[in-house]
C-alpha cells in the first residue's frame, strides 16, 4: 500500500505498511494483519521486561526531542500507591508536520496497541490520547477504533482476560499549538488553561493530576508493538550509520517537491535522496534553496548542508539543524526566505501562551519587524536588533516556544542574508503585510 503514494523502494515500511488500506482500520482487519499479538505478549510480560526490550531497541522519542523511550519509562516510580498515567501526544501541530495524522487515520489500532503496551510498562491503568482539535477525520477514526477495542476486550477492566485494567480516553484539543507541549497538554486535559508548567517537577514525579505520568508521541508508541513482536535486536538493526539512531522514522515532506507526502525511512537515510529520489525532486526548472528538516522550530538548512546529511538525530545535528518531529519543509529558488521566516514568526506570535514575558512580547515584536522589512521599511540595524531579540528569547522561558520562534529568524538571517539585504536596499519589491 502506501499513502498518498505507493511505497517507494527506498522506504522501509514498518509503521506505514498499511497506510492507504481502509481495511486495516478495523479491529478485525488489524488483527488479521498481525495486530494485537504484541499486546497479548506484553500482557504476559513483567513491566521491567517491556521497558528493557524498548531500551534495547534504541527507540527514541519521535515527537521531536529524541529522548530514549525506554529510559523515559524507567523514570516512572515502581510503586503504584498513586495512579500512574500515560498521555499520548497526538496534538500534532508543528507547521510542516503531518506524520502522526497518517497513523491516526490509517492504523489507529497500532496506536491503541502501542499505548496499551506502554501503559503496562509504566504501570498505568489510564491512557489519555490528546488529539489535535483540527484532526476531525483522524479523531472520528480513532474514536471508533477505541470503541472497537473496548468491545473486543482489548481494553477495559480485564484486557484480553489478563486481569489487567487498560482504560483509554480520547481527549480532543481545542486548537492551541502550545497544548502539544507536554506540560501544557496535561493542564489542558485537567481542564485548565493550556499553559506549560515549570519543570521540575518532571511528569514522571508529578504530572497529570499531580500523579506520575509519561508522555509519548503517537509515532513512538505505534513503533512499540513491532518491537515487542519482532524483537529489540531486529529494531536496532534498522540503522544506516549511527547506532544511536535506530529504527524507522516517518518524514512528512511538504513544500516544493514533486511528490509531497509521508515517507518512512530507516534512520540515517541520505536527506538528499529523500528529497530528490523519494519525493521526486524539485519542480521542473527549479533548484533547491532551503530545507527545514524537523518541523518549523529547527534551524533552516542550506542545500550545501543537505548534501551528505544523514537523516537521523546525529546526522542532522552535525549539519547544523535537528531531526525534530520529522516534518520537512522544502523550499525552491522561488522562495522568499524573509517572507517565510515572517510567516513562522507570526505563527509563534499567534500561538504564544502569553505566560513568559520574553515569548509574549518577543514573538510579536519579531513579527512586526519582519513585516516592516517586507514592506520595504527596514533599516540596516533591524537585523542586529532581530538577532539580539532572538538572544533574549532563547533559553529564558518556561518552554521552548520562544526559542522556536527565534531559531528560524537566526538561521534565516545567518544563512540567507541576501534575501534580507534585498529588502533593506530596495532591490526587492515591497510586500504588503502587517500594519
Amino acid at each position, binding site marked *: 500500500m502506501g499513502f498518498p503514494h505507493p511505497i517507494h523502494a527506498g522506504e522501509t515500511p514498518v509503521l506505514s505498511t498499511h497506510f492507504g488500506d481502509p481495511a486495516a482500520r478495523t479491529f478485525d482487519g488489524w488483527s488479521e494483519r498481525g495486530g494485537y499479538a504484541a499486546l497479548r505478549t506484553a500482557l504476559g510480560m513483567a513491566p521491567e521486561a517491556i521497558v528493557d526490550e524498548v531500551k534495547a531497541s534504541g527507540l527514541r522519542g519521535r515527537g521531536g526531542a529524541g529522548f530514549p523511550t525506554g529510559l523515559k519509562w524507567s523514570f516512572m516510580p515502581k510503586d503504584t500507591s498513586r495512579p500512574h498515567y500515560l498521555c499520548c501526544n497526538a496534538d500534532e501541530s508543528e507547521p510542516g508536520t503531518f506524520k502522526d495524522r497518517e497513523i491516526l487515520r490509517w492504523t489507529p489500532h497500532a496506536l491503541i496497541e502501542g499505548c496499551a503496551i506502554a501503559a503496562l510498562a509504566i504501570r498505568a491503568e489510564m491512557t489519555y490520547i490528546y488529539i489535535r482539535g483540527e484532526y476531525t477525520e483522524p479523531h472520528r477514526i480513532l474514536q471508533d477504533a477505541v470503541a472497537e477495542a473496548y468491545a473486543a476486550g482489548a481494553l477495559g477492566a480485564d484486557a484480553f482476560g489478563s486481569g489487567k485494567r487498560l482504560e483509554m480516553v480520547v481527549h480532543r484539543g481545542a486548537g492551541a499549538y502550545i497544548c502539544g507541549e507536554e506540560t501544557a497538554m496535561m493542564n489542558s486535559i485537567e481542564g485548565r488553561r493550556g499553559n506549560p508548567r515549570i519543570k521540575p517537577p518532571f511528569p514522571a514525579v508529578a504530572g497529570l493530576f499531580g500523579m506520575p505520568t509519561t508522555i509519548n508521541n503517537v509515532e513512538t508508541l505505534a513503533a512499540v508493538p513491532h518491537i515487542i513482536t519482532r524483537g529489540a535486536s531486529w529494531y536496532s538493526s534498522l540503522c544506516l550509520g549511527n547506532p544511536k539512531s535506530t529504527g524507522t522514522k516517518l518524514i512528512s515532506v511538504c513544500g516544493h517537491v514533486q511528490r509531497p507526502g509521508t515517507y518512512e525511512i530507516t534512520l540515517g537515510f541520505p536527506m538528499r535522496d529523500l528529497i530528490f529520489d523519494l519525493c521526486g525532486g524539485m519542480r521542473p526548472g527549479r533548484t533547491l534553496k532551503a530545507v527545514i528538516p524537523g518541523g518549523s522550530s529547527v534551524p533552516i538548512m542550506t542545500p550545501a548542508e543537505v548534501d551528505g546529511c544523514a537523516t537521523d538525530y546525529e546526522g542532522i545535528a552535525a549539519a547544523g539543524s535537528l531531526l525534530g518531529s520529522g516534518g520537512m519543509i522544502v523550499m525552491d529558488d522561488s522562495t522568499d526566505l524573509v517572507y517565510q521566516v515572517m510567516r513562522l514568526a507570526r505563527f509563534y506570535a499567534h500561538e504564544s501562551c502569553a505566560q*513568559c514575558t*520574553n515569548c509574549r512580547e518577543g514573538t510579536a515584536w519579531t513579527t512586526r519587524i519582519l513585516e516592516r522589512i517586507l514592506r520595504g521599511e527596514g533599516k540596516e540595524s533591524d537585523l542586529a536588533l532581530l538577532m539580539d531579540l532572538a538572544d533574549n528569547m532563547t533559553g529564558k522561558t518556561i518552554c521552548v516556544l520562544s526559542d522556536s520562534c527565534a531559531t528560524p529568524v537566526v538561521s534565516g538571517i545567518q544563512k540567507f542574508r541576501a534575501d534580507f539585504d534585498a529588502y533593506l536596499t530596495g532591490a526587492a519589491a515591497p510586500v504588503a503585510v502587517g500594519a
Partner: protein
Amino acid sequence: MTDELVSVTVDGAVVQVPRGITIIEAAKHAGVLVPHYCYHPSLSSPAVCRMCLVHVEKMPKLVPACVTPVADGQVISVHAPAARKAREGVLEFLLINHPLDCPICDQAGECELQDFVFQEGQARTRYSEYAKRYNPVEDFGPDVLYVPNRCILCTRCVRFMEEMAEAPVLAVAERGDRAYIAIDPHHQLDHPWSGNVVDLCPVGSLVSRDFLHRARAWELDKSASICPGCTQGCNITIETRDEAVVRLRPRPNLEVNRHFMCDTGRLDYRWMNHGDRAEAPLVRDGDRLVAADWDAVVARLHLLVHDTTGPVVVLASGRASSESLGWLMRMLEARSTIAAMKVPIGDEAPLAGVPGLALRPERAANLAGGLMVGVRDAWADAIARVGSAGLVILHDVDLNDAEAAAIAGAGTLVHFATATDDRLPRADLILPVTMMAEEQGVYVNRDYRAQRYLPARTAPGMARPAWWAASRVWQRAGSERTVPTTTSEAFAALPAFGGLTHRDLGYGGRILDPAVVSR
C-alpha cells in the same frame, strides 16, 4: 523545609539560609533584592515574568530565582552580565506595549516597572513599530479599575483571587501579546478582600477608584499602624498627605494578616479626617461651657472623681488605646465602676486561603485590651445604669440617638471627646483627646496579641491622649505618685500588661497572657 542551614554565596556574600528556601528568599538574607514581578511570598510562584533569572555556577542556563531551591555551596550571581542582560531584555519587552503614561498614572513613584527600569533598563527604546496594544479601561468592581495597557500580566491578581480569596473571578484571556486580564462576565470584583489586588499589582494596571488621582506617591507620609476596624488587628500603614489620611494599606505581618487587609478596613478612614474637632478643654460654668487650660480641667476632674457619689459608668470606644482604657480605669480605682466598650457587630468575612484571617464580627480593635483592664463588653447593661450613676465618663464613642438621650440626662457627665456632641448639651467637662491616627498606642487583638501603632498626623489644638489626662488626675489623688511621660511608660505602668514596654512588643506584636482577664 527544615531547620537545617545551608551555605550559599550571593553576589560574593556568604550567607547561611534554611535548606529548601528559594534563591529569591535566600538573596534577601544577603541583602540582595532579585528584581521580580510575578513572585509574591504569599502566592504561588508561576515563574512567568522571567525577571528573576539569576546565574548559578555549574547551571547551563539562567534559573528563575523564585522557584529554584538553594543547594549547599551554591554560588549565585544576581548581577552577572548574563543575568543583567536577561533582565534588561525582559524590561524592554515589558515596555514595548506599555503606554509610558507615568505622568498620569496613580502608581508612578511606587511602580516596580519604573523602579527596575530606572535601575537596570535601557535609556532608549529600540521599538519603532506601529501603535502599541490598546484595550480600554474596565470596571472590575466597586473599587477596582483595570487599565489593561499598563498590565504586565504577572497574574498576581489572578492568583490572589484563586488562592487567597478562593473566588476565581479573574483569568488571563487570549494568547500572545493580545493577552489581558479578564473578569468573569457574570461576576464583579466585589469580594470583601478584593482590594488587595490593587496592592499586589506591581504596576498601575489595577487601581483603586477611592484613591484615584488623590495624591502622588512621593507626597505621602506613611506611618505604621493597626487597623482599628475589628478584633483581627491587621497591620496597616496609614498614608497621609498634608495631615489628611488618604489611604490605608496592609503592612506585612505573617502571624496576623500576611500581606493583606479587607476592603471594609481599607476604605473606612474618612472619620480620621473629621473636621469638627474638640480642640480645647471646656468646663461648665452655669449654662455655658468655657475654655480652660489642661491644669484647670485636670483639677476639676479630680474633684468630680472624689466628690461625686454612687457608681461610675465608663462608656468607651473600641478604638481607644490600651493605655487610655487602662489609665481611665486606674483614675477610677477608688470608685465602684461599671465600664463597657461599644462593640458594633457585623458580618464575618474570612479570607479563605489564609486560616485565621477574617474581618471579624466584633468591630472593635481593642476589645481584648479593654477586657484586660476591666472594660467589659456589656454595653447595654452599662447604658441602662447611666440614669443611676453618680458620674458618667464617656470616651470618644459613636452613640446612637437612644444612647445619647440616655446619657444626656446623666447626673454628671465627663466627655473625653474627639468631637463635641450636640446631643449632649449638659456635659460638665469636655477633654479634647486624640484619636488613634494621632497617637501612639497598643491594641490587643482577639488572640491577645499586643501590637503598637504610631501617630500618622498631628493632633488638633490642645488635644492629648486620654491616658495623659487620666494619669494626671490619678496623680492628684495621692502624694509621691509619679506618672508616665511617654505612651510606652503609660503601657508599662499598667499591671495588666505585665510591665512590658512598647519596645518589648517588637515589630510583629507579642502574645500576652490573658489569664488576668475575667469576663
